[in-house]
């Protein structure tokens, strides 16, 4: 008799679907994954949608509407393990830029019938509403890290997802520091590893797509950016990206807002 395969689900909230596409992009591994687990609910990939409970649920996207709040609580109830994936689910995403503005004003300008729009005043991470077992940061997530997290939960071990700076990835690869060697502003020292130091590997500064690292000293790095000639506005914008509402980045951008 075949052993019952663990049921895996992938849910989507307010997001661009890029993290789900990263999963689908794991082409070499998808067949192995499909063999090892029962992909029970993944509307982006399959019309076959099995009911919960699920052994592992991966959640993409942020919470932006009252409906989202209800739905994420349902998802939590149906899931033994809940893992959030991507900057939206872990920090509120790029759409959290509206957290600094009045959402009602936007809906008035954009929609002919703004009364049809039911939106919360802020875009928040999943962990603001329900307990999350593991957060996988990144915009978008790294497909290999996704497989690592899934394998780790399936085999009940600790995922090897380092929360140190991107600098360690650069140095391990032998990349020469763009900040020191070229004077290019780089968020690597305050940013969570995981992308494999993608931008610095191509002589670009880090944009902070993977959100804050474990102990980010954003203030010290900002001071150095100012020394390099950036304005307070530049620094504010540097921290107000895909992970703008992650606490460390939010506080730093606020400190430079005039």
């Amino acid at each position: 008799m075949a052993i019952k395969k663990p049921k895996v689900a992938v849910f989507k909230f307010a997001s661009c679907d890029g993290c789900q596409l990263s999963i689908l992009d794991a082409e070499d591994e998808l067949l192995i994954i499909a063999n090892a687990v029962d992909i029970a609910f993944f509307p982006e990939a399959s019309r076959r949608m099995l009911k919960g409970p699920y052994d592992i649920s991966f959640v993409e996207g942020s919470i932006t509407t009252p409906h989202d709040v209800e739905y994420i609580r349902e998802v939590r109830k149906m899931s033994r393990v809940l893992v959030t994936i991507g900057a939206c689910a872990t920090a509120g995403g790029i759409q959290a830029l509206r957290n600094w503005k009045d959402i009602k004003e936007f809906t008035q300008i954009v929609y002919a019938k703004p009364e049809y729009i039911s939106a919360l005043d802020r875009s928040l991470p999943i962990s603001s509403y329900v307990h999350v077992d593991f957060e996988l940061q990144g915009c978008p997530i790294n497909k290999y890290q996704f497989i690592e997290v899934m394998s780790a939960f399936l085999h009940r071990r600790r995922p090897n997802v380092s929360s140190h700076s991107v600098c360690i990835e650069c140095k391990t690869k032998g990349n020469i520091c763009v900040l020191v060697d070229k004077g290019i502003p780089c968020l690597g020292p305050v940013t969570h590893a995981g992308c494999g130091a993608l931008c610095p590997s191509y002589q670009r500064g880090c944009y902070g797509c993977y959100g804050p690292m474990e102990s980010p000293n954003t203030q010290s790095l900002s001071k150095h950016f100012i020394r390099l000639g950036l304005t307070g506005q530049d620094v504010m914008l540097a921290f107000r990206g895909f992970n703008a509402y992650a606490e460390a980045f939010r506080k730093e951008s606020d400190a430079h807002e005039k």
Partner: protein
Amino acid sequence: MTSRQPTLKLKSQQLNTLINVIKQRGYTPVGPVVREGSLIYDRLNSADELPRGWTDEQDAATFRLKRRSDNAYFGYNVGQHSWKQFLFLPKVKLFTSIKKGKTFEVIPNSPHEIVQNYAFIGVRPCDLQAIKVQDLVFNNGQFTDPLYKTIRKKNFIAVVNCTQAGGTCFCVSMSSGPRAYRGFDLAMTEVLSGDDHFFTVEVGSKSGAEVMSEIPHDIADQTQIETADKLVERAARQMGRSMDVKDIKEILYANLENKSWDDVANRCLTCANCVMVCPTCFCSTVEDITDVTGEHAERWRRWDSCFTMDFAKVFGGNFRPSSKGRYRQWMTHKLATWIDQFGTSGCVGCGRCITWCPVRIDITEEMRTIRSGAR
């Protein structure tokens, strides 16, 4: 070698012959090259690939490559890379494990499959000292890292003594340069005077003597030796930094609660760049990975740092949660506890941690602050 060998003279045109002879003897030459505008250490096919005519300007948090007015082959100091990356690999698989029914089979990774016979060309005296420091860590009789030991055993080292110092250099303070006295196969000093361009060469080993016997060379005369010596002495006077090492261990031990640690913690990014670029930092972590099926597992070792949170995480908590504690750990280990542990300082004065700290934290300055406010 017991008997003192005469200093030899190698014409600059013969530098490529040296590299060729080294290659013919089965070594993979590695040395400084310029890639994408940066100074790195990489495979070296010929002397033409050396950063000839380049120099570097270094200060806290800046490194710039500049053109020289001459054609020196080694007219720069050390870059971000160090020889550590070839001897103590940043990432290495230790073994593979395959599930066999209810048990599993372990397939070790043989060092011999990974090891290259590296010939390091252009090792600076501070970096040679760093290699000796890591020898004490990885191959000290009591503890042996088989991979490190195997790579070192097959390692050829051609030192180039420094004839100029960089803005963050302080090897004189740490007694590790600008001249190397032992522990090399060859030690060269580059001399450029007028149209004359040559290297004085000291032979430090049997392999070094064998290599030199295959290359056309002369015996250096007294004037040539003195010219080379003067250039090295000039470098010694040019140190961009200095560190007073008198009673350094006692001072650090007596100042674990000095308030200057709070100040440096405010600036420290805990990014671990200093550790990564340090040629003696030796910490690593071990990661076990499994695939989705659970049939296949691997154990990997990779560079780690006392600046990461995971480093001091144990059951029940983290015994070094603050960045203050982590910076203090790094600096106190490097300059003080290292002496108790290995009988030598962990610092060789190469200046990398000063140049490559993104926010200009300078170990010589931090030490000065502690010393001046010492209890």
